[in-house]
C-alpha cells in the first residue's frame, strides 16, 4: 500500500516537475531548443501506466501549462490531449518498439505537436516562428531515452517492491 502510494507520488511529482521545467529559464543560447517536458512525461506514463492516464488528465495538465506560460488558454490542453490520444491508440505496438524506433515515434509526436502549435498560433494571429522552432522536437526526441530510462528505473523499483 505504501509503495503504491510512493508510485502515485512519482506519477504526480513527475508531471508537476515537467510543468516546472517548462518555465525554468535556460541560457539564451539554448533556450530555443528546450524540449517539451510535459509531452515526454505524459508519453512515458501513457506507455507504462495506462490505467492512470486518460485524456482528461492530459487536458488538465495542458491547462496547467497554459496557466503557467500564459499564451492562449486551451492551446497546450488541446495539443497534449491529441498527443496522449495518439499514444494510447498505438500503445500496444509502441510498447514493444526498440529504443531507436521509440525515438523516431517521439520525434513524430513532437513534430505533430509543433504543427498543431503553428496552426493554432496562426489562427490566433501570432507571428510565424523562426526556423529554430523546428529544432526543439529533435532535441526532445534525443532526450527521450534519458527520460524513459530515469522514469522507468524509479518506476520498476517501486513496482518490484510492491509485489
Amino acid at each position: 500500500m505504501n509503495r503504491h502510494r510512493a508510485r502515485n507520488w512519482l506519477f504526480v511529482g513527475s508531471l508537476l516537475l515537467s510543468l516546472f521545467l517548462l518555465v525554468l529559464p535556460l541560457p539564451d543560447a539554448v533556450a530555443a531548443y528546450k524540449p517539451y517536458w510535459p509531452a515526454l512525461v505524459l508519453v512515458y506514463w501513457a506507455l507504462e501506466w495506462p490505467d492512470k492516464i486518460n485524456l482528461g488528465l492530459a487536458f488538465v495538465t495542458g491547462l496547467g501549462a497554459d496557466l503557467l506560460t500564459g499564451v492562449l488558454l486551451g492551446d497546450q490542453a488541446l495539443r497534449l490531449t491529441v498527443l496522449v490520444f495518439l499514444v494510447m491508440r498505438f500503445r500496444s505496438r509502441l510498447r514493444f518498439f526498440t529504443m531507436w524506433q521509440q525515438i523516431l515515434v517521439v520525434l513524430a509526436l513532437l513534430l505533430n505537436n509543433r504543427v498543431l502549435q503553428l496552426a493554432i498560433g496562426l489562427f490566433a494571429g501570432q507571428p510565424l516562428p523562426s526556423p529554430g522552432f523546428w529544432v526543439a522536437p529533435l532535441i526532445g526526441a534525443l532526450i527521450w531515452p534519458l527520460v524513459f530510462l530515469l522514469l522507468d528505473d524509479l518506476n520498476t523499483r517501486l513496482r518490484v517492491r510492491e509485489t
Partner: protein
Amino acid sequence: MALTRDGNQTLFSASMAGTLRLIVYLALACVLMVFDHHGHWLAKARYGAAFVIEPVYKLAGLPSQAVDTLEVAFSSRKRLTEQNRHLRQDLLLANARLNRMAAVAKQNHKLKQLLETQRTLGMKVQLARLIDVDLGAYRHRIMLNVGSNQGVTPGQVIIDANGIMGQVVEVLPDTCVGMLITDPDSAIPVVIERTGVRTVAHGSRQGGRLLLPDIPVSADVRVGDSLLTSGLGGRYPPGFPVGTIASVQPGASGMFLRAVAQPAAHLKRSSNVLLLRDLAPPMGPPAPAIPMGPPVKLAPKGVQARRGGS
C-alpha cells in the same frame, strides 16, 4: 473464433469511445481558445490562480539568481577591482553629465515657468527586479517582481539606465509581465534625434532588433542616428532613447525607406529596471470645449445638480 471477435469488438468500441472523448476534449479546448481570444479569460484565470503560479515563477527564478550570487562570491579580486574602477569612472561621468543636466533642467524650468506650462520634469519611478522565467523562447516578454499590490497598472513604461525597454501588459498580484519593444506586437512612436523625422519603430521576429519600415524616401536617415521617443500616442513619454539605426535600405515597394535599429536598452542583460509611475500626458487633439450656455445660477434646479456632480 468467438474469442477474437469478442476481442475485436471490445477493441473497436473502446477506440470509438476514445475517439468520441477526444472530440469532446478538442471541442472544449477550441471553445476555451475562442473565448480566451475574445474575452481574455486567461489573464483573469491567471490572476485568480496567482497564489499557485507566482511561487512557481519565484522558484524558477531562483537558479539564475543563485548563479549571479555565486558569480559575485567566486569572482576574482582582480576582476572586482577592475569592475570597481570601471564603475567609478562611469559614476564620475554620470555625475558630470548630471551636473550639466541639472543646469539645463534649471534653465528649462525657468523657460517653462515663463511659458506658464505646468508640466514638471520630475518623474516618479519604481525600482523593479527581473525574475528570470522562461516565458517561451520566441516571445519578447519579461517578468518583474512587482505587481498590483505594489501599485503597478498595465501600460506603465519600463526603462533601464540606457533607454526604453517596453511596457507592462499583464499584472498579477505580486508580479507583472512586460512586453519588450522588440516584440512583434509592439510599436513605439519615435523621432530621429538629428533631423526630427517622426516614424514608428516596430518589433521584429529576428530577435533583438527594431524595424522602421515606413520612413519617407526623402527623409535624411543615416546609420548611427539615434532614436528618441516622440511622445505621440501618449503611451511612452517623449525624449527617452530608444535605439540607434544600424542599417538603412530602400523598402520592397520603393515608396519608403526601411531601417533596422539596435535597441538602446540592454534588453537581455538588465536585471534591475525602472517603472515610470506617471503615464505620459496624452498628446492629441485638445479636449472638447465645454458647451457654452447660460450661467449656472440661471439653470433650472435639476440641471444645476447634474453639472455640479459632473
